[in-house]
């Protein structure tokens, strides 16, 4: 597995406060990686170290194999970075800022204009002529994405890219990020778990500067998420519940008002057997649905698990 980002025993101390505690992280190339954690978990510190803006107290981080400590110029060339609340020069227009960013990243003069126009189109700012000081928050965030992409970096580092946006702005930005899938590796921090669920294929959960888990979203669902089947039948389900409890894949059956839910260790087996049990118990089926646990539920489970 080729790695876009790797950290080894990365630590950061601010005075007596240990913000990052021996973080070892692996982000495969091409993945959309969500970095989750409550406020103060160390997400921004990690991103800033990766972007070459903060110096690690111990350990090292690598972007495509280049050390952020020893090869800062190379790692900064490989990354596009968007801070949580990007601030630009208000007197510039979006187009001017992108040209300036391209110059700083040594984008060839011949490619500069074409690249800038492409990105302005991508983020929906092509027709905007006003200086940046007149931009809304959503426009600034979209310009932020564009400036991070201006030198076509293989790695994108985004710090809470959607946290300051309204629902519409969030939706637009997530769509822009989703459209980049298959291009650069996207490593983004967020505490909005719904955003991670929508676009990430891998996640890491951080708390108090320590890594709690890093996995593919599917694996996380399988490992932490208990799938449940919700059943609604006509008539008294006591006989059906008793039959279900005798099945080897049944973990738990909970009876609620008007329905009951079944936690299972083998979903396909349960899906095959339940219709037969319904026939045997002669109960008409009103509704049957499989419930996947949300990332939020998994997140809470991981945070609350004994360390």
């Amino acid at each position: 597995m080729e790695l876009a980002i790797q950290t080894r025993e990365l630590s950061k101390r601010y005075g007596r406060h240990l913000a990052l505690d021996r973080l070892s992280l692996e982000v495969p190339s091409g993945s959309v990686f969500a970095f989750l954690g409550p406020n103060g978990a160390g997400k921004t510190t990690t991103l800033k170290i990766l972007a070459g803006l903060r110096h690690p107290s111990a350990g090292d981080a690598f972007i495509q194999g280049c050390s952020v400590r020893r090869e800062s110029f190379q790692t900064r060339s490989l990354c596009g970075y968007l801070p949580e609340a990007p601030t630009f020069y208000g007197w510039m227009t979006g187009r001017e800022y992108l040209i300036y960013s391209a110059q700083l990243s040594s984008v060839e003069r011949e490619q500069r204009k074409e690249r800038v126009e492409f990105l302005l189109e991508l983020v929906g700012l092509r027709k905007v002529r006003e200086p940046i000081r007149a931009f809304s928050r959503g426009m600034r965030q979209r310009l932020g994405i564009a400036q991070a992409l201006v030198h076509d970096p293989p790695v994108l580092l985004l710090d809470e890219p959607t946290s300051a946006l309204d629902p519409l702005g969030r939706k637009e930005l997530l769509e822009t990020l989703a459209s980049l899938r298959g291009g650069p590796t996207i490593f983004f921090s967020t505490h909005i778990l719904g955003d991670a669920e929508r676009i990430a294929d891998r996640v890491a959960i951080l708390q108090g500067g320590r890594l709690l888990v890093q996995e593919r979203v599917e694996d996380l669902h399988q490992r932490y998420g208990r799938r449940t089947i919700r059943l609604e039948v006509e008539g008294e389900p006591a006989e059906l519940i008793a039959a279900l409890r005798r099945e080897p894949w049944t973990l738990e059956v909970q009876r609620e008002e008007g329905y009951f839910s079944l936690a299972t260790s083998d979903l396909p087996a349960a899906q095959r057997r339940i219709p037969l049990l319904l026939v045997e118990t002669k109960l008409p089926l009103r509704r049957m649905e499989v419930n996947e646990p949300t990332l939020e539920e998994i997140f809470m489970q991981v945070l609350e698990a004994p360390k």
Partner: protein
Amino acid sequence: MRGFAALWGKEWRETWRSGRLFILVALFLLLGISSPLAFKFLPQLIPAELAEAFSSLLQPTTSEVIASLFKNLSQLGILVLILLAMGGVAEERSRGQLELILARPVSTAAVVWAKFVVWALQLVLALVVVLGSFTLYTHSLFPPGPSLLALLQGGVLYYLFSLLVLAFTLLASTLLPTSLLAALLSGGVFLALSFLPYLGPAYARFAPSSLLEGASHVAVGASPWGVWWESAALTAALILLCNLLAVWALRRQDI
């Protein structure tokens, strides 16, 4: 110094678009014309009964007008330069603009030197305006006016000291979290430096602030400018040191 050309270009455009260049030149123009105008029209503003008491003031020589210009430049001019440079790094860092720059493959040396070079050029422009306007007004109001060569030589000594003010304020702006603190530190240091020549001849020989007195002396033709080479050499070394320290400090900072 990777990224210098782009950073320099941005600093220059910002100076132009924000109106900072215009304000600087306008202020220096005001300093340039205020001395000859004030000396010329002061007699008309003073009541006749007081005129006798201030007779020497009311019939000034060209040298006195020149000395007055350099006094203004040493006080108001330096204050304007501190105000110009105080936000150099501190403001961009606190606003968050700097992190988007330093996350790119640019050197901290390029960031510091681009600002310094643009300010140095602005100052050249401001000094051309101040000395040009002063010469024009003094020629017409107090003929035959000043010696242009002597005035230019005095201007060079003043320029050198001004560059130290800019370099030190930039260093303070790099080290301190806010532009106000940078301005206070810089103002305090240069106020203290202005007393250095009075501590003894050895201090006066090397003190950068001797250049201000030197600028006035040279401009009125009282001494050749070569006399001040020791102060000038130390000032040039300090300018370099301040900028190198600013680069080093910025490189070590967590942004």
